[in-house]
């Protein structure tokens, strides 16, 4: 508990970084309070990973400055390194080595003597449910187990700040929940977590504050509640039996909700925001009204859902452009499976 820190874990001002002609960071400002989970939310290529790599001392910024617990990431990189730990998007353990060997290796590098390193490795493997797999090469682990050994390696010395770069991308729902539980446990013991994600619900579940990143800039910042209320707390998705009725349905929706209605690429589908701040009804009551109005107008609805705004809708609302082109989005969904 003696190392619990207060104040700001990360303070970044105007960070820029380009790779050739690509401007990955176009002036990022961040203030991450210590002891919290902070989410960087954005699509692929928004600059999240570059930001994390700069803050973890792996990349030098072209301009701007960043301090981690008051230490400059360029001039005091060594001080920063002794307090942070990174779980990257790609393997940050050695695939050829076993789980135990990986953790003993890192323990030794962090200054533990061999018996202490072995003890620590065994304890971590047990806590992460990997005892049975401890003598197996990491390349034989499943996706979920890989993530767990990655995170176990990152908390070997209980860092003050842990970077998790898209920790659940590509995981099945069960493994994803396991990672969420681990993140909650880590932060409850005083470690600050900077998490990048493409999923609003993940940021919503874990983060105390979120920065929405697009084209290398922070375009919105706040608590999940603040962000969502700026977009509307929910969205109704409708799919009609007869696409010819869509103009009529759009009119009914607009009258019932008094919000802009979006026409989806699917000719029979449309979406609208509900639960917007300032309306007197909550989201579900508004949805009920939409349904009854549509029934009264003789419009048959085949498919109806009420959900949280997706990252896409948050983006659309904040930037007037979708988060990712549709074809790329399909690739991501594919990769996430």
């Amino acid at each position, binding site marked *: *508990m*003696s*190392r*619990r820190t207060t104040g700001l874990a990360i303070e970044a001002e105007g960070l820029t970084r380009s790779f050739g002609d690509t401007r990955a960071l176009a002036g990022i400002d961040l203030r991450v309070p210590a002891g919290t989970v902070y989410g960087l939310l954005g699509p692929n290529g928004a600059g999240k990973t570059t930001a994390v*790599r700069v803050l973890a*001392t*792996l990349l030098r910024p072209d301009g701007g400055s960043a301090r981690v617990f008051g230490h400059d990431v360029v001039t005091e990189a*060594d001080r920063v*390194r*002794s307090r*942070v730990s*990174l779980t*990257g*998007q*790609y*393997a*940050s*353990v*050695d*695939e*050829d*080595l*076993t789980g135990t060997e990986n953790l003993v*290796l*890192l323990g*030794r*590098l*962090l*200054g*533990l*003597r061999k018996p202490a390193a072995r003890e*620590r490795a065994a*304890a971590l493997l*047990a*806590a992460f*449910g*990997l005892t*049975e*797999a401890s003598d197996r*090469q990491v390349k034989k682990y*499943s*996706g*979920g*187990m890989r993530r767990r050994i990655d995170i176990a390696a990152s*908390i070997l*010395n*209980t860092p003050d700040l842990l970077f998790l770069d898209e920790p659940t991308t*590509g*995981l*099945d729902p069960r*493994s994803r929940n*396991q990672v969420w*539980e*681990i993140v909650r*446990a880590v932060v*409850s*013991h*005083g*470690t600050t977590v900077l998490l990048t994600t493409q999923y609003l619900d993940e940021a919503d579940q874990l983060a105390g504050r979120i920065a929405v990143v697009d084209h290398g800039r922070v375009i919105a910042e706040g608590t999940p509640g603040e962000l969502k209320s700026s977009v509307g707390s929910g969205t109704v998705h409708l799919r009609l039996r007869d696409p010819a009725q869509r103009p009529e349905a759009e009119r009914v929706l607009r009258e019932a909700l008094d919000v802009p209605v979006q026409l989806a690429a699917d000719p029979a589908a449309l979406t609208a925001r509900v639960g917007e701040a300032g309306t007197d009804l909550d989201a579900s009551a508004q949805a009920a009204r939409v349904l009854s109005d549509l029934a009264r107008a003789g419009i048959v609805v085949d498919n109806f859902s009420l959900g949280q705004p997706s990252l896409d809708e948050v983006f659309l609302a904040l930037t007037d452009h979708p988060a990712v082109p549709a074809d790329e989005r399909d690739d991501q969904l594919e990769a996430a*499976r």
Partner: protein
Amino acid sequence: MSDTTTSTTERAPSVYVPSAEALATVLAPGARPARPSALGASLTFGWRAMLKIKHVPEQLFDVTAFPIIMVLMFTYLFGGALAGSPREYLQFFLPGIMVTSVVMITMYTGVGLNTDIEKGIFDRFRTLPVWRPSALVGMIFGDVLRYILAALVILGLGLVLGFRPAGGVVGVAAGIGLLVVFSFAFSWVWTFFGLILRSEKSVMGVSMMVLFPLTFLSNVFVEPSTMPGWLQAFVKVNPVTQLVAAIRGAMGGESDPSATMWLLVWSAGFVLVFGTLTMYRYNRR
């Protein structure tokens, strides 16, 4: 895809449920141990290289089979023509082919580093608060063991085929020692190329382009006195020539102080120049 691996490797009875209590036991912040010394960290990275050999023993193929093929091939190809008999040629040729084989093997340092970086493991190493060059020094420590193994394989085969070094055990050990010093230094050339080139293939390509002229345009196969003047000029300044001369001297029982000195100067130069360039790139990726 992850679904299938999950079902085969994570059997149903042992589904992991994170428990706050279990995690609490490993999350309590203890006192941080003192950071390891530069040598300690390098040796730990060397241990990693050993573990990799243990898990992937096939990687020893290039330090065993390749040198055996080189020795047999050239001894019997050139022996009769150049020295009257293969056995006679071997007395001159063995130190040279030992150098050629080991110097060629050094290029795998670059290939290995390039692969490691592609995989992402170096991201973790580079965020550790340890002496910066230790990951690379440790990697080369591991490679040095491979060099020694290759040298011993060649020596063993040479002895079987009739190589009789006049320098005895001490001379042979000194010769191998010089070879290891030079190879350690020369490996830094490849760590640099391993860092600046994009793919494993391009590292291989550049290595071959450097290594073929360096090893063949030397005194390894024949005495340079038979070569045209311009070629002799290159052969004379080639560090491989100095290395071979020094090792021939040591193993033959008549040390060659001038060649030995030049070899050590070259070695220091490689570490200084390419070690510095490597670390510059390593820190600024």
